[in-house]
């Protein structure tokens, strides 16, 4: 058999004593597109970070064209022809395509003056070779996102990359842009470029990839040729047989009759939310499933008054509400635990206490002044109730772990005593212990009468907490499932993939 271009053998990696990669092997042939799949936390990104020199493996070896190499930083990775195509693109939007491609490597003359002509000519040549229809003098910011990615790839190839790593490359692309990208990938294959393709989108993987490797809990489960494996098998491999005990679903009883506490009718907003309708009943936990880029987070932003609503209606307790700002949403009894807690949820340099009391400042006044004693008491109460691990309430929020930060965001909103809680990816970047705690908190809140909307890409988690699940696909609710009707994660996976 032909020698692989890249082979990683027996790679292991632990963080704080927890094994996140356990003797994983992975190989990539010349001109191959190789999909890397697995749930969140399966170890995909750690494996790729080891390949690009961000992390170093505890055990295992990496071979390029049969030669053992050591990759200690991103420069080493570049030297070994490996290039990561970043999801949040590393291009300067105000510079031209050519300027971006040759950034820091600009052609210069003897006294250091830039040779723009050569730069443009070289870029033109490069783009022509790749058969990409982009003008080298176009400003990046004026081009569509799809072209950014191609520019990024062109940049990598101009640095002699032979192995490209693409992480969810289509998540921000339209259907048409995706098609263009796939054509481009096919051309790259013919030129002998190899691609590691990370994605959750099954249909795309079967369309473009040659082989699939599936990771679960840090172990390699299988590597198969795409022609020889079925979607069912892939899903089974990703899900695995045994789910964590903490993620076991318990049937809850609540009434689905009467007025829903929140009803969204034909909501549209921007390009991602096209036509979304659903009902949330008092005491219910409604799960929202969907792929990244399906419009599920944008839907939440619109409901909470962050993005403008273009069409549709929102009813809270049967009354129509016009929500134009988060303030309106909060007044209507809503609370949002946003997707990105560091950017949207917390003021990192402020204390635990300051963060918790931020939404309720107007409620803890004594005359015109803030009642600090009451504020401290509230903050201390929530630190205890949610088991937030901090030295004291005056500790800077940014110094706590992800799980504890997330609990601060929860505390912040619980302090305001909302009727409806919207949680967008509540356990992202949170360790497993904190994860089960957060799941418990969600259940108990619903039991105490709160109504909850949970958006999550982690299906086990979604299945553990939800009473009902709606599936969002391309800005629409395409399916509604009662939890009772879902007997396995596969069913939900199928629904999410759009089948």
């Amino acid at each position: 058999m032909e020698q692989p271009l890249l082979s990683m053998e027996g790679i292991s990696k632990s963080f704080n004593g927890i094994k996140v990669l356990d003797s994983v092997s992975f190989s990539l042939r010349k001109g191959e597109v190789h999909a890397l799949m697995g749930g969140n936390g399966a170890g995909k990104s750690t494996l790729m970070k080891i390949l690009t020199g961000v992390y170093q493996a505890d055990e295992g070896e990496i071979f390029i064209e049969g030669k053992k190499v050591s990759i200690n930083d991103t420069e080493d990775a570049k030297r070994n022809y490996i290039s990561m195509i970043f999801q949040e693109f590393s291009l300067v939007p105000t510079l031209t395509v050519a300027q971006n491609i040759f950034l820091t490597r600009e052609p210069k003359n003897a006294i250091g003056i830039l040779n723009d002509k050569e730069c443009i000519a070289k870029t033109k040549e490069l783009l022509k070779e790749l058969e990409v229809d982009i003008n080298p003098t176009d400003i990046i910011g004026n081009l569509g996102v799809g072209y950014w990615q191609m520019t990024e790839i062109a940049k990598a190839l101009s640095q002699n990359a032979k192995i490209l790593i693409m992480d969810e490359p289509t998540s921000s692309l339209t259907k048409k842009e995706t098609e263009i990208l796939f054509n481009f990938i096919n051309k790259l294959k013919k030129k002998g470029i190899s691609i590691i393709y990370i994605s959750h989108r099954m249909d795309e993987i079967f369309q473009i990839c040659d082989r699939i490797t599936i990771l679960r809990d840090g172990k390699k489960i299988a590597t198969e040729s795409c022609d020889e494996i079925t979607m069912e098998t892939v899903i089974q491999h990703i899900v695995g047989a045994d789910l964590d005990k903490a993620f076991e679903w318990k049937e809850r009883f609540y009434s689905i009759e009467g007025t829903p506490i929140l009803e969204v009718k034909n909501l549209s907003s921007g390009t991602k939310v096209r036509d979304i309708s659903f009902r949330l009943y008092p005491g219910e936990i409604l799960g929202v499933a969907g792929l990244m880029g399906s419009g599920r987070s944008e839907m939440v932003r619109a409901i909470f008054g962050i993005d403008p609503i273009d069409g549709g209606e929102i009813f809270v307790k049967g009354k129509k509400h016009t929500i134009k700002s988060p303030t309106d949403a909060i007044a209507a009894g809503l609370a949002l635990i946003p997707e990105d807690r560091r950017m949207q949820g917390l003021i990192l340099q402020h204390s635990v206490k300051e963060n918790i009391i931020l939404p309720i400042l107007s409620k803890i006044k004594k005359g015109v002044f803030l009642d600090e004693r009451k504020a401290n008491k509230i903050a201390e109460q929530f630190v205890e109730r949610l088991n937030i691990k901090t030295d004291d309430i005056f500790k800077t929020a940014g110094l706590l772990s992800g799980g504890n930060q997330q609990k601060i965001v929860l505390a912040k909103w619980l302090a305001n005593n909302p009727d409806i809680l919207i949680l967008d990816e509540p356990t992202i970047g949170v360790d497993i212990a904190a994860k089960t705690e957060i799941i418990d908190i969600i259940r108990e809140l619903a039991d105490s009468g709160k109504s909850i909307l949970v958006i999550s890409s982690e299906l086990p988690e979604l299945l553990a907490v939800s009473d009902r699940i709606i599936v969002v696909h391309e800005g629409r609710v395409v399916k509604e499932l009662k939890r009772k009707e879902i007997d396995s994660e596969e069913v939900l996976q199928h629904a999410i993939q759009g089948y």
Partner: protein
Amino acid sequence: MPSKDIKMNDSFNLQNNLSPAKRLKAFDWRNYIVYIAFVGVIIYFSITLHDEGFLTTSNLLNIARQTAMISIMGVAMTFVISTGEIDLSVGSITALASLTAALALQAGLGLFGGIAAGLGTGLAIGIINGLLITKVAIPSFLVTLGMMGIVKGLAMWITDTAPVPIVHSTFNFLFGSGDIGSIPILLIWTLIITIIGHIILKKTAFGRQTLATGGNEMAAKFSGVKTSKIKFLVFVGSGLMAGFAGMLYAGRMHAGRYTFGEGDELSVIAAVILGGTSLFGGVGTVIGTVIGSLMIGTINNGLIIMGLDVSQQMIVKGLIIILAVAFGRKTLKK
């Protein structure tokens, strides 16, 4: 709730009973750099300039008089910078406000007419700044840079660069020249504004929301803070206090003049940053600002007594500001 009573935060309780030694360790002197530096400067001048009378009451009161306007504008600027914005127009506003107040008094509108004209000028410009920044969404640096020129131009134009004398003795007494007992009225104003500013920033919801807006505007917005309203109000406050400072210049000099407050915006910003307010927003202290302003004033005063000429004063002042801010930084690069 999963509070799991027993397991609950052993560390929490433990840390609450910190030993004095540990408490001392937790003390970060960098937070207090401006106070340390201020005390250092006073001690230094007290020793080296003892015979020249640095430490006399009259000299110290003089420092208070000279720094009053910067301190008062600094209090308002602390709010602006705490939201992550900047106001470059304050120096020009003091000039225009001194003139409008003087003109109103000259026109016989009386004490309250003069006050209304001075404060009104600052208020109006603050409102325009605030609206342009929040409604038209122009960065505050550009809005107030433009406004700095416009207002200065207006101040020169309004009397064709001629100063306007103020003969209203009550106005002059109240806003600059007077002493109550032996305490200069300028010091009293500084104290009043400082206390009010400190209380608003530290003890009210508005203050908290100001810091939240500067700390993470998006998170503040997500939390229901009306960040635009907060920003608008801090610019109105800044304009108003600049107008007030203009009246103090006028009362102190018994005249309105377009040259008043020239370059003050930079002294004010220096005082705020020196005091420990973050130029990027989210962290602010009114007391620190006033100490910063006093420190700059003291250095000025000491250098003058030492007999340094203006050029040397500027160099020393610049060095001290850079050093103080450098030592105060928490993230010193290796």
